[in-house]
């Protein structure tokens, strides 16, 4: 049932194809007071908020399918060569991976607190502080990722003509690192986009745009941030921890 628009039992009898008399200009004036952020094609703020959040959820479903293709590739090739993947996984630095996992989980906390600050009409300084904290943690994640990538470059672990592998499964190892760079690279790209979004949200919060009546942008951006976080929660064990699993 539509929640956004009221149900009605009576039938509107008037001719809907006759323009009302007052339409002469190019714009129909709204006669009663609306929230300034209410867009013209919505009836109520509730409808607008529901549409925006549903839109973000649907978008996140497409993101799941997008990463899903990569997870499928991972599944196929890991099944084909579990030992090779375990061997290749040993060259990833579990400590850095764990640090990054913690950094992202904390950033989700600061993000959630940022949404709450907007929802409770906290002062702009508080809202901005949480968003800046989230961005700092996101940037820290990318910094660690840069350190790790540099390490892979110096050790010839980047797939392609310069790839070198001393172990028993060079082909599987190269496949593992192809997937490693595709998966973490796309994830990092999502982080960069997330930082851009947070920048905009931070500026909007600074300009006092958000309060208990209007906080949808913070909320939907938060949904996106949490999603990117969750992708990493899957990437970390799949890429970093399988080596330990196999050697035991």
């Amino acid at each position: 049932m539509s929640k956004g628009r009221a149900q009605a039992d009576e039938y509107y009898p008037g001719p809907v194809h006759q323009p009302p008399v007052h339409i002469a200009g190019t714009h129909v004036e709204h006669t009663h007071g609306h929230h300034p952020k209410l867009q013209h094609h919505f009836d109520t703020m509730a409808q607008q908020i529901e549409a925006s959040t549903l839109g973000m959820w649907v978008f996140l479903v497409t993101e799941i399918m997008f990463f899903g293709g990569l997870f499928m590739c991972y599944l196929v090739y890991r099944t084909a060569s579990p030992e090779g993947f375990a061997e290749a996984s040993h060259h990833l630095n579990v400590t850095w991976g764990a640090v990054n996992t913690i950094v992202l989980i904390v950033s989700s906390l600061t993000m959630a607190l940022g949404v709450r600050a907007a929802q409770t009409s906290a002062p702009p300084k508080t809202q901005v502080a949480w968003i800046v904290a989230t961005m700092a943690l996101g940037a820290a994640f990318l910094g660690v990722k840069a350190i790790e990538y540099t390490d892979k470059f110096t050790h010839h672990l980047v797939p392609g003509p310069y790839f070198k592998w001393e172990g028993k499964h060079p082909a599987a190892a190269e496949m593992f690192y192809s997937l490693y760079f595709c998966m973490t690279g796309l994830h990092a790209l999502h982080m960069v986009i997330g930082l851009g979004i947070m920048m905009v949200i931070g500026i909007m919060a600074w300009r006092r745009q958000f309060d208990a009546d209007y906080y949808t942008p913070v909320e939907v951006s938060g949904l996106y941030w949490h999603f990117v976080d969750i992708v990493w929660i899957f990437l970390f064990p799949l890429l970093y921890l399988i080596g330990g699993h196999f050697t035991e």
Partner: protein
Amino acid sequence: METLNYINNGQGLASWLLTKDHKRIALLYLASITFFFFLGGLFAFMIRVELLTPAGDVMTADTYNKMFTMHGVVMVFFFLIPSIPAVLGNFLIPIMIGAKDLAFPRINLLSWYIYVLGGLFTLTAALSGGVDTGWTFYTPYSTAAANSHVITAALGVFITGFSSILTGLNFIVTVHRMRAPGLTWFRLPLFVWAHYATSLIMILGTPVIAITVLLVAAERMLHMGIFDPALGGDPVLFQHLFWFYSHPAVYIMILPAMGVISEIVQAFSRKNIFGYSFIAFSSLAIAIIGFLVWGHHIFVAGQSVYAGMIFSFLSFVVAIPSAIKVFNWTATIYKGSVRLDSPMLYAFGFLGLFTIGGLTGLFLAAMGLDIHMHDTYFVVAHFHYIMVGGAIMGYLGGLHYWWPKITGRLYPEGWAKFAALMVFVGFNLTFFPQFVAGYLGMPRRYHAYPDEFQVLNVASTLGASVLSVGYVLPMVYFLWSIFAGEKSPADPWGAKGLEWETPSPPPTENFYVTPIVTHGTHQYAPSKEVGIV
């Protein structure tokens, strides 16, 4: 002073290129899609010219490969997939549900710009030498061997996919959140149900092709080797990922056409649809089961027999909801006051051609028969019966049916009937001989062929010429009608539905007063409540 409507409300190029009105965006799509349709048609014409004679004499084999590749890429990704949703769906869904616009008007405009950007990439690939991989971009040819502009074309497909995702997202949110008071799910027009199901496929399938072509591009540029057997990759995995999207993509093309046919059949039989809820749910069934049949493209590519059997079984199952629709449309026409206006002619064409296309699909879904038919012209004929005989017939039928609403002008009905006839005759003459040629063993994608197939190929090329006249004619009289056509009343057909209750062309906010709906929107027989389950 002329009544204000969405066309004259705002003048100048910027008012169109920066519009957030779903109706204007639909027209932007209409213009760009028409361009790609005729571009794709040009490639098809080159193919047919080459195949007039058994010897490969008009162009080299390489050029021929590029022709059918560009034909496929342009027609599938830049015409068929966006055609009905982005033009008719975009224009009609908000009006049919009594809303002022789609839920996200700016995202709607963004989707058109993304579409254009993807189109520019593909045009660049075409103009700078073309792509020769086939529209399927099969690896390892596309990654290791093809010496053509694969990356550019793949990125074009990648980019335009996002336009499709955004359109689907917009439709889903709109149908959930923007319906007019009293417009319950089971009062929705079946056109809206069909687009809802289509949108599900768009959001679930398109991301998978996006990541797949991205991996192909990465493999070509960075030597990643995900699909390259030389590097331990598996080319069949590419086929799985590719068809996971590209088979459901066929339903992205045909489901909206089915929605159009549901509307036309009711309007020109003057009857309530037979089995409303069956048609509504069969759209969802097609969307869901359609995701589980992709393996029937890989029967001969090394897939296990057991996987093949399951995919074969599911491919038979997915035919059932389509058959339900065909039977329900037939039952709707039965004992109706049938009017043979041009949209109805297209609907009749659709019914016959789609049925043939669907049934020959069952031939191909049978594993044993597919070994004989695989990669022959039988396959080509089968999917053209669905995509051209089904989807384009639906698109043209819908365009004729709603043209008076879109432009506020009537087109010359006599010419329209003549064009519909040309399309029907031309189509069958083009593609029926290909069933025969394929059954006799003529393989697809060759620019030369044995002499005994010449009669069939000449017939096919002759048919393509007739068909092209049938396609050019509507463009001529549609354009003419904009300038010189008679003005259309709000409801020129005497049809039911919210879109016919607002003026032609509609005002910018679609309705002067938000409609309140108290019964099914297509109630031709007043006595009973339609479609409440």
